[in-house]
């Protein structure tokens, strides 16, 4: 009896843990530090099984001392180790940003390229489950704005594994931002499209390459993380109205694959950027500027952005859900463009 070859699907959490475990088996310099990343396996499940396999010396629960252990990771990385550290929620960067942006991100430059800081800082992002304004932010732009660190944001388990492996092997610091709504933790509710087939063997995705996840000819919807899934839903809705939407998953903010976005907009002539981070001074502004700067003549309509308003993230679901990007808002953004054009 032959059974069809089943493709193994993994959650983003499991894909991340698998990438880390495989690199730890291959490279004794790789080790993990963070709060509750040991026996618990991480609040978001992305270090599950590591403590069991590698023990407490290489998978270290830390005190609630982010300045100390992230600073320590910089020192260990510069001394030949390859630390992976977790900042449980990206919102907590406030207590330790100095180690991140003044040390981790700058030591290579300050040393004239002689000091390497091969570390990965992973942090959860995202809203949608009423965790209020100190546990729900994305802050993509905050990190991407500051030179010297790569920033990746996967939207699914396949990309998460490939980007994590690449991040660990990279000789530069990499910030790995994973969205809680994609993680596959039972208690959070998960976007179905994030749990996808993942090869067992280790593989790298090149950091800095965007991906067209849906081809289309009328509008380019550019997003990252959970926004990609909103964009795909919007594209399906638009298709019913005879509109062909292309969806681009940025996957990496630093480096930013501007060429990929520009090539798409050259084809479609219309651009919508979807970002769960705050509206102003962020990813949406950067993408639009990159296109306009390149060739304003490509655009058939004013570009649109669907982002989080410039307010702290409210607790109550009626406000939070109202403020978050979703497929309906993306469709409305397209309709706005369309109306303006036909006027």
């Amino acid at each position, binding site marked *: 009896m032959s059974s069809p070859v089943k493709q193994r699907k993994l959650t983003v959490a499991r894909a991340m843990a698998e990438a880390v475990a495989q690199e730890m088996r291959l490279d004794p310099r790789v080790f993990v530090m963070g709060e509750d990343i040991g026996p618990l396996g991480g609040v978001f499940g992305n270090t599950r099984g590591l403590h069991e396999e590698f023990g407490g010396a290489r998978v270290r629960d830390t005190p609630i001392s982010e300045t100390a252990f992230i600073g320590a990771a910089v020192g260990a990385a510069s001394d030949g180790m390859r630390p992976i550290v977790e900042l449980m929620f990206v919102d907590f960067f406030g207590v330790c940003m100095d180690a991140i942006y003044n040390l981790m991100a700058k030591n290579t430059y300050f040393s004239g390229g002689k000091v390497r800081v091969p570390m990965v800082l992973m942090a959860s992002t995202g809203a949608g489950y009423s965790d*209020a304004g100190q546990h729900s932010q994305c802050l993509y732009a905050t990190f991407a704005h500051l030179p010297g660190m790569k920033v990746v944001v996967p939207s699914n388990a396949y990309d998460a594994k490939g980007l994590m492996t690449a991040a660990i092997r990279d000789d530069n610091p990499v910030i790995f931002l994973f969205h809680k709504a994609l993680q596959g933790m039972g208690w*959070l509710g998960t976007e179905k499209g994030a749990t996808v087939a993942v090869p067992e063997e280790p593989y790298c995705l090149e950091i800095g390459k965007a991906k067209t996840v849906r081809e289309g000819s009328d509008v380019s919807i550019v997003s990252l993380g959970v926004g990609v899934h909103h964009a795909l839903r919007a594209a399906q809705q638009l298709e019913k109205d005879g509109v062909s939407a292309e969806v681009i998953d940025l996957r990496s903010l630093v480096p930013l694959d501007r060429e990929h976005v520009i090539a798409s907009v050259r084809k479609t002539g219309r651009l919508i950027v979807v970002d769960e981070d705050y509206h102003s001074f962020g990813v949406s502004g950067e993408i639009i500027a990159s296109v306009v700067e390149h060739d304003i003549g490509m655009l058939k309509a004013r570009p649109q952005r669907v982002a989080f308003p410039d*307010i702290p993230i409210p607790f109550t679901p009626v406000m939070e859900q109202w403020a978050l990007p979703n497929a309906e808002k993306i469709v409305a953004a397209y309709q706005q463009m369309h109306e303006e054009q036909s006027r």
Partner: protein
Amino acid sequence: MTVPSNAQRLWMFEQMLVSRYLEESIERIYMEGKTPVFNMANGPIPGEMHLSNGQEPCAVGVCAHLNAEDIVTATHRPHHIAVAKGVHLNEMVAEIFGKKTGLSGGRGGHMHLFDARVNFSCSGIIAEGMGPAVGAALSRQLQGKPGVAVAFIGEGAANQGAFHETLNLAALWKLPVVFVIEDNAWGISVAKQASTAIERNYLRAAAYGMPGVFVPGNDAEAIFAAASDAIERARAGGGPSLIEIETSRLAGHFMGDGEQYRPAGEKEALQAKDPIPAYRQRLLELGVLDERAAEAIAARARGRVEEAVLFARESPYPAPEEALDCVFV
């Protein structure tokens, strides 16, 4: 050792009961809409929920010495302290439900409770309340106004930079502030001995030249006595102090926590030492309470919680667009 008056004892007992009944109600209501599938986003109380069951003595033993004008900052686990500080209960519960009538109109939720009428606030970043407590104490000193500030933190927060910086600053400037560590032995899944290089955090006070005391036993009256000394010192211009309290977290870190990290039997042992029945027994033995009076107090406490929950349930949600208000005044 300062002994509470009988009136203070009854007050402490009643506030502990209000707090516990509140947590028990929240625990029940939190699960509405979250079965059979537990998804934090669902139900009338969505989001993270950190219950304070077991830690009530810390709140009442300290707050028994405070007036509305005194300042309190609390943590992600704030309910027992809010109750003891006199935060408006109906509005607090409405905030936890995300209602328009809540303390912040639903913008803050359970980790961000603000009641300026009684100078209470809390926040969700570890050790974050310490700076503001020191600053409020400085403000009172500069203005020559009465009042002390109390910063409550968990034992996990004693390893955060802000802890060390604020202790030094408060001692340097001799500010009227008291730091209270609620040591429940756990920071999420990490046991204190796995995160803290010394056995007792009160010893750290010596590094900053301030008095530090350890209060074992999760006992409201022992906490009352230690807090009396510290708060009197602060009011008299004697500067800051640190109080480390041995307490217990009878619930999980947050609702939905599987608690597999706890050693077998720990939870049962802690339950057996639940401070509220123990204090009730003590008051009965002291003759401060009889069964009838105890029942009457319990009924009143339950009634307050029921009223607050009803108020919250019946209150309307805010309009979504109100999200845009209050970013600036």
